[in-house]
């Protein structure tokens, strides 16, 4: 029970974030329906009884989405900083969160190419500063404990480079 408790707390927190995000994007009912769909999704509920990073990853991405929406709507530098921060934080929760960081950077590049930041170039700087902070903490932590700043990526590369048909020798 204690091992899965963080997943349960993160599940409740994600529902609240989804409610507020959807309400901001549309209205109360839309918020209610979106959060209800998340709350009753079988895989999501199933994973709340596990000690895995799945729900936590969902929470950090949901918070990042909330701030990305805020940043693009209100042109808020603070919101963009927090969006970058929470996107990067995903990588500390699950290493595959690197894909989220890449997606975020591609999105920013796309918006920049379409002149969305023409008057708000400082927002890009805030997004990058937000992204760099958790990554610096991660790199420092890994360097101190393993002597390798990208130890987590090396661990993942070992798995990714295995073909599905590889026979492992024990």
């Amino acid at each position, binding site marked *: *029970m*204690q*091992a*899965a*408790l*963080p997943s*349960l707390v*993160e*599940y*409740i927190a994600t*529902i*609240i*974030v989804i*409610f*507020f995000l959807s*309400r*901001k994007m549309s209205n*109360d*009912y839309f*918020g*209610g329906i979106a*959060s*209800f769909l998340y*709350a*009753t999704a079988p895989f999501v*509920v*199933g994973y*709340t*009884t*596990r*000690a*895995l*990073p799945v729900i*936590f990853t969902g929470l950090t991405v949901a918070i990042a989405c*909330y701030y990305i929406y805020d940043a693009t709507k209100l042109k808020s530098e603070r919101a963009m900083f927090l969006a970058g921060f929470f996107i990067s*934080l995903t990588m*500390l*929760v*699950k*290493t595959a969160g690197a894909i989220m960081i890449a997606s975020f950077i591609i999105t920013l590049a796309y918006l920049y190419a379409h002149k969305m930041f023409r008057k708000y170039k400082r927002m890009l700087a805030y997004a990058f500063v937000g992204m760099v902070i958790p990554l610096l903490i*991660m790199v420092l*932590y*890994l360097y101190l*404990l*393993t002597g390798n700043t990208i*130890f*987590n990526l090396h*661990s*993942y590369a*070992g*798995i990714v480079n295995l073909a599905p048909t590889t026979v492992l020798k024990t």
Partner: protein
Amino acid sequence: MNAIANTKEIVILILVLSTAIVLSYIFYSGSFVYYDDNYYIFSAHQMLQGAFRPNDILFTVETLTIASIAISFLFFG
């Protein structure tokens, strides 16, 4: 987050959260089957003992997940 503005929002949110809590309670009543979870739980125990170090096992590098489980163990045993 913005402050909740009216009772309608509170009612909707409470309804959704109640559904979530009931569903979680039902699922928690079932048996626990741990697979990959064991690596995170073991790493969390090591973290509390101060003996944790990321190693070649993929799960040990996901620091915040392990830390959140360790905090749960710290407060609830």
